[in-house]
């Protein structure tokens, strides 16, 4: 089977691009308890984040009757790790607990096989009808996912498998469908690729049928016509399809971490969210709570203070949801704000959010999940979709960045002992020459006949020679504006020399941090090392900007890593001498609002505070103290 496009994969793509953002951040997706939890707390403290605990106040007030007048406040509170800002009041709905596995070998007793089969068929039909009903109310990608899962709930392959197990092994219908679902999921998993992804849908359907048989609430997000705050242990990727952001006001989970699925979903949907808030699982449905997604706090029985804060956030978020398309400082100094995109759909969204162009087009979307190189025609079509969204504006295309965490069977060697230091990014041109040239040819062809101003850059450039060679390939393809990414510390140090051959550089702060600190981005225990607030990383950015000044032609120095999406770091970067910032479209408005609050002279002073700080924690603390607007906006 060859690779195929996946029309219903749009949501998955939103989520996976968010996963990439998260992997660049300070935590891994492990769920933590006990010792890990303590480690997380210290990391969170180091980042200046709130630390998950049930507050002392909670413990003392819990022991007292409510309404005690000697207590200044009868409120109880919980805290966790805030992952998405926002202050909101609402009533909660608990996510039903996951369906537990029926006991292996569980035999029918007191009922006939025929009755068991009838019960299974009834449950299957009920789940089918419920999912179909939900599909009718859903839109776009969610609708397609729900329609497909509705059909799976009544699928003959699955149901007949269950019936066979009831007849032949005397199993209960719960256990029978559990095993039938497992074998279908395994079959799909073994088929690989697209089919393997559907295995999770079969397991979801299986859990729903078991819940139906047991007379338990269906797993997944509760149905409601009125808005609520969703509280649960952690969300699963499948929950994204049914999470309606117009009904769900905020997400609060008792476990999970800053890279958990809940956090990823919250980021993708822009919902206020708190994770690792131990104790919230005991709250009753209908309880009114106040959530502060920046501080990571949850308050029960919200009072006048909380109501005022929530009302103020409504006003602020309206301001923060709009970017006027003209990034600038208080003194009018222009800082173009661009978007990072991974395909045409992203690009259309970014254009709607008034991004001033694309600062990073990840071209991997054309290549990932394939066994062979896409043809030039396929690539041209894919790139043109992005270019067409930005007529008259800059679109910076990053050439294929395969390897390390993005392996490609036809380009990279999966057996490398040290893939992050291996043949990845631009280096695949050493081992598979031709792929890059064909991609540049496709980019040039796609650029013809569009009004976008197309720039191209190579990832993982380490030396001046490589930059010169890449510029030569671009010139041969007829591409006028070649540039390189600065992700390897050697490129930061050599930027003046590199810039004599290319027209611009763009800092990939995620990889630059990983290489400067020698700390794998994916490893939880190294999370505290992996922050762009590390003064050493900021110094490398400064060296890059200084290299551009030394070269003398004011060639642009951009940042397209996650650092650009952090409003506080954005100020530091501009103060250091970065000329453009590119980020996920959702962050544009917050970054623009904070940049507009400082002059260039102030940004330089703030940058100096960070550059001279001895530690990452202190750099961040100093900068936040100098930018009171962050607290005002709840960022």
């Amino acid at each position, binding site marked *: *089977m*060859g690779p*195929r*496009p*996946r*029309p*219903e994969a749009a949501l998955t793509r939103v989520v996976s691009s968010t996963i990439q953002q998260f992997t660049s951040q300070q935590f891994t997706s492990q769920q933590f308890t006990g010792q890990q939890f303590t480690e997380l707390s210290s990391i969170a403290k180091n980042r200046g984040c709130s630390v998950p605990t049930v507050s002392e106040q909670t413990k003392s007030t819990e022991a007292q009757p409510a309404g005690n007048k000697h207590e200044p406040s009868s409120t109880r509170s919980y805290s966790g790790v805030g992952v998405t800002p926002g202050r909101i009041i609402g009533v909660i709905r608990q996510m039903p607990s996951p369906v537990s596995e029926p006991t292996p070998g569980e035999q029918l007793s007191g009922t006939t096989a025929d009755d068991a089969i009838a019960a299974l068929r009834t449950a299957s039909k009920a789940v089918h009808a419920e999912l179909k009903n939900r599909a009718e109310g859903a839109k776009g990608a969610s609708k*397609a996912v729900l*329609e*497909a899962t509705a*059909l*799976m709930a*009544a*699928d*003959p*392959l*699955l149901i007949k498998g269950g019936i066979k197990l009831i007849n032949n092994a005397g199993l209960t219908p719960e256990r029978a469908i559990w095993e039938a679902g497992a074998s*279908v999921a395994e*079959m*799909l998993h073994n*088929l690989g690729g*697209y*089919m393997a992804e*559907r295995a999770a849908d*079969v397991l979801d359907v299986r859990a729903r049928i078991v819940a139906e048989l047991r007379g338990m609430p269906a797993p997944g997000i509760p149905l409601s016509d009125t808005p609520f705050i969703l509280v649960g242990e952690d969300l699963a990727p499948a929950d994204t399809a049914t999470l309606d952001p117009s009904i769900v006001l905020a997400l609060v989970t008792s476990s999970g971490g800053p890279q958990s699925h809940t956090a990823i979903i919250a980021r993708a949907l822009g919902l206020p969210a708190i994770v690792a808030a131990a104790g919230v699982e005991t709250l009753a449905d209908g309880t009114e709570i106040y959530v502060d997604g920046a501080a990571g706090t949850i308050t029960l029985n919200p009072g006048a203070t909380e109501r005022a804060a929530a009302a103020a956030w409504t006003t602020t978020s309206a301001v923060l949801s709009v970017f006027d398309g003209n990034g600038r400082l208080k003194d009018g100094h222009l800082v173009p704000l661009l978007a990072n995109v991974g395909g045409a759909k992203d690009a259309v969204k970014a254009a709607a959010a008034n991004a001033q162009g694309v600062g990073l087009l990840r071209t991997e979307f054309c290549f990932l999940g394939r066994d062979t190189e896409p043809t030039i025609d396929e690539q041209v079509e894919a790139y043109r979709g992005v270019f067409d969204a930005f007529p008259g504006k800059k679109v910076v295309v990053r050439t294929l960045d395969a390897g390390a965490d993005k392996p490609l069977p036809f380009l990279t060697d999966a057996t490398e002992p040290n893939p992050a230091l291996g043949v990845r990014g631009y280096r695949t041109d050493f081992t598979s020459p031709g792929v890059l040239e064909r991609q540049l040819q496709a980019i040039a062809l796609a650029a013809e006949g569009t009004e976008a101003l197309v720039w191209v850059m190579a990832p993982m450039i380490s030396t001046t020679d490589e930059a010169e060679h890449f510029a030569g390939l671009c010139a041969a393809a007829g591409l006028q504006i070649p540039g390189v990414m600065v992700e390897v510390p050697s490129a930061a140090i050599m930027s003046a020399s590199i810039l004599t051959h290319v027209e611009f550089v763009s800092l990939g702060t995620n990889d630059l941090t990983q290489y400067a600190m020698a700390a794998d981005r994916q490893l939880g225990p190294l999370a505290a090392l992996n922050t762009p607030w590390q003064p050493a990383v900021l110094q490398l950015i400064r060296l890059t900007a200084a290299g551009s000044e030394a070269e003398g032609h004011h060639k642009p120095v951009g940042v397209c890593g996650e650092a650009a999406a952090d409003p506080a770091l954005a100020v530091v970067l501009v103060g250091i001498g970065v000329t453009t910032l590119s980020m996920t479209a959702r962050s544009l408005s917050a970054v623009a609002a904070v940049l507009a609050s400082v002059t260039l002279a102030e940004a330089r002073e703030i940058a100096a505070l960070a550059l001279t700080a001895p530690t990452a924690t202190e750099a961040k603390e100093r900068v936040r103290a100098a930018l009171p607007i962050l607290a005002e906006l709840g960022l």
Partner: protein
Amino acid sequence: MSERKVTIASRVGLHARPAGIFAEAVAELPIEVTIAMEDEPAEDAMDASSILSLMSLGAAHGDVVVLRAEGEGADEALDALVKILETDLDAE
């Protein structure tokens, strides 16, 4: 036994939405319909009303599949199903 050969028209192949539309159409029929790839023996044919079976068949755009059915109305039913597979269901 009636039999029809048909070329898959959907650009994404017989997957996801196209597979769902087809499986639903088959499920509404009073007769059993099987589906197999052109070069596969009839005994390996799968239940065409199962979306899971259809997806695991892995029929891509341009592949030829064989539909088989028996009984009253089999020919008319297969003709209707052929029309569905000859349409690019993903384009709608």
